């Protein structure tokens, strides 16, 4: 495990007030991992997202949610009751000394508390205010509810996933709000760049549905241009490059193998042919084949070409069934074959490439008496670094630091607020 090298983080001068819930955490995490000071605000009784599992040691407990840990690294945490007028006043004070507010309430909720973009920007025109909601701040469905499942459905991605003889599926680990959170982060940074050029702040309005559409690799225009809809195909690759079985069983699991035609797939088919030949397993019909001439467009429409593709597919499957994931990966690596193991999380944590790059980071959890291994840096850079800096905050962990040192309130005031349930 590489220790954190002493390089700058990119966003150290900036402060972010994070008012998000479970669908918005990722944005602040990215900004915090890039070095911004992110202050996450949760209700005095603890954030409801602390009830989301899995849990440390499988013990449901607000300080043991791995969901909370995963998406709130590099953030400080304070408690505050936003529904009390005094809480609202404190938010306004915090906003005054922040560059960015990120929130994921239903559209209009913060406006009703006097904490929406319009109200806050009136006294601080250079504020960047980023909202992350299922369908965006405007439009006929702005008030619709959305979860990972229903938004993966509504953005069109889910229709493309799963076995054809069953219902469409989502990726079993929620991803749509994760992607939307990353998009919110880059949009926020674009707005920050503009502010630093012009002094002008603005409202950034992220639609999780729209971010979801950007998972579809341009399937969106098939009905316009081809008059067809792309459909789910189980373990087959069907994104317009012919229709080939793309997940093949191997000796110790599965691998993905990209049987494409044309210039894209030919080098792989020559390389696998050489491998098969070296073991005396190359069938006669594959010998001397000009794989470049397998035109992709023809494969998509020509039934005879598709039959040949299927036969090729099964021949390769039979060959690879005797190899392990690592044999196939090593061969793919040295011979430039478009193949890769179907890894699981255990494979990832042990992966020599990730570990050689020091991808995972060990963060201290002194309250649990342990360190936990986290993913991971966002990139390697020559003059900076980006990755989780410290673990997610405990409930109210930074109240004294933020209300005391940042806003200048005496400790007695904090105690009084605590008695009144404000913090």
């Amino acid at each position, binding site marked *: 495990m590489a220790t954190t090298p002493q390089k700058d983080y990119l966003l150290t001068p900036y402060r972010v007030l994070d008012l998000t819930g479970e669908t918005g955490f990722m944005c602040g995490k990215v900004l915090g991992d*890039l070095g911004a000071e992110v202050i996450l605000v949760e209700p005095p009784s603890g954030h409801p997202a602390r009830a989301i599992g899995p849990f440390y040691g499988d013990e449901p407990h607000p300080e043991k949610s791995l969901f909370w840990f995963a998406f709130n690294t590099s953030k400080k945490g304070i408690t505050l009751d936003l529904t009390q007028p005094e809480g609202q006043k404190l938010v306004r004070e915090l906003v005054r000394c922040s560059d960015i507010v990120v929130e994921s309430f239903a559209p209009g909720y913060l406006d009703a508390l006097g904490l929406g973009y319009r109200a806050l920007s009136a006294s601080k025109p250079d504020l960047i205010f980023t909202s992350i909601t299922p369908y965006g701040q405007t439009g006929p469905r702005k008030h619709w509810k959305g979860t990972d499942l229903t938004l993966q459905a509504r953005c069109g991605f*889910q229709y493309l996933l799963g076995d054809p003889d069953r*219902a469409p599926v989502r990726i079993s680990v929620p991803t749509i709000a994760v992607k939307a959170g990353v998009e919110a982060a880059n949009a926020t940074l674009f707005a920050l760049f503009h502010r630093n050029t012009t002094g002008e702040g603005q409202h950034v309005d992220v639609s999780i549905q729209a971010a979801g559409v950007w998972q579809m690799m341009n399937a969106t225009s098939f*009905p316009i241009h081809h008059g067809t809809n792309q459909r789910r195909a189980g*373990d087959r690759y069907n994104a317009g490059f012919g229709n080939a079985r793309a997940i093949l069983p191997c000796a110790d699991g599965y691998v993905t193998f990209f049987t494409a035609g044309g210039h894209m797939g030919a080098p792989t088919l020559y390389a696998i042919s050489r491998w098969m030949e070296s073991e005396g397993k190359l069938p006669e019909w594959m010998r001397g084949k000009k794989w470049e001439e397998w035109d992709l467009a023809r494969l998509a429409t020509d039934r005879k070409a598709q039959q040949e593709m299927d036969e090729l597919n099964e021949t390769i499957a039979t060959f690879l069934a005797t190899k392990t994931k690592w044999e196939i990966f090593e061969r793919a690596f040295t011979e430039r074959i478009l193949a890769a193991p179907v890894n699981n999380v255990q494979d990832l944590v042990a992966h*020599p490439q990730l570990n050689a790059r020091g991808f995972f980071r060990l963060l201290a959890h002194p309250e649990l008496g342990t360190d936990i291994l986290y993913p991971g840096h966002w990139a390697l850079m020559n003059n900076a670094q980006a990755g989780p800096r410290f673990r997610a905050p405990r409930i109210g962990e930074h109240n004294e630091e933020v209300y005391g040192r940042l806003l200048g309130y005496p400790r007695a005031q904090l105690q009084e607020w605590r008695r009144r349930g404000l913090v």
Partner: protein
Amino acid sequence: MSRRVFAGINVVDFGWIGVGPITARYFADHGATVIRIESLTRFDGLRMAPPYKNATPGLNNSQFFANFNAGKLSLGLNMATPEARAIARRLCVEWAHIVVEGFTPKQMRAWGLHYDDLAPARPDLIMLSTCQLGQTGPYAMYAGYGNMAASLAGYYTITGWPDRGPCMVYGAYTDMLTPGVGAALLAAALDYRRRTGKGQWIDLSQFETGVNHIPTAILDYTVNGRIANRRGNADDRGCPHAVYRCRGDDRWVAIAVFTDEEWTGLVRALGTPAWTQAEKFATQAGRKAHEAEIDAHIAEWTKTQDAEQVEAILQSVGVAAGVVATQSDLHQDPQLQHRGFFAWREHKVMGRSPYDGLMSHFSKTPGDVGPAPLLGEHYEAVLTGILHLSDEAIADLIARGVVEMMLE
């Protein structure tokens, strides 16, 4: 005051296929001048990948390419020639603020365009290098597409049904995740340079980006030793939490209930049938314990209705529901329409075509999507306008195949 965030920012885009070009497109959408460097002799595979306008293959007819390269200028260069490499180097050293590239690690070095080659002349250059497994490490030279990196990052293991083998995630999934990260890093690096004068070489691994999008599953393993597997549409907390068949050909609706309040809404939408009143369904834990029974009842209810009808009824009572939208549905989606998501633009060969639009709305600097370039279309704008080459020199470069184009 400029309405475009990156007006005056120059980007040279050596990306190809997905990640590099999409990353650079974010900047084109927000006003940067982006020059896509491409080639006719070794054209970007996406130029010959569907969907094509009128389903007709052609180098200037692919929406796949167009979508990822909207709003850019295109310069065609035969990089096998030293003159082409010299032109590319001049653009990087004399003109660019940002260079994006997406080759396996040795390619830019072979052209003399590696960060190490450019940084001595331009220490403030920001360069993003993105490949499957990163620029360093024992497997840095692994070559593949996003459908390989998605497999490496664990996505196929967690897609599909527990009683069956893994499923593909449509397309090249890490190509859809990595550009958002690249755009964030580049914007942060631009800001850092403005404050410190320092450039940046950003080594962005598509494999690592994939892993960074499933941190909960990683922690469940590093803490609890649990290996995430595929589970259809099930969720630890939600119930019902599934996709149900509706009336019509391959029509489905997703329904997700997490709270008692939402359950009450669902029951009301169902017309409060007797089965819903059973004691065992009174709590979320009880419902979770009898999930299969609930799913069967709901499937019975949905199968005679339109998916849109179910969605509308449930949303009206505060229950999250979503039609499993086809691509055709997306073009009729009133919410996406209201937000102007699909940007129909006039392309010189393809005519009016829909580009995937902006995910985020900016109140002061809205951004815009431009049409994609023809292959090599902007050689004059670049060679004359930026590099100030003479007409004779340009004609000579074209005649000798250094500068390439396909303008029909």
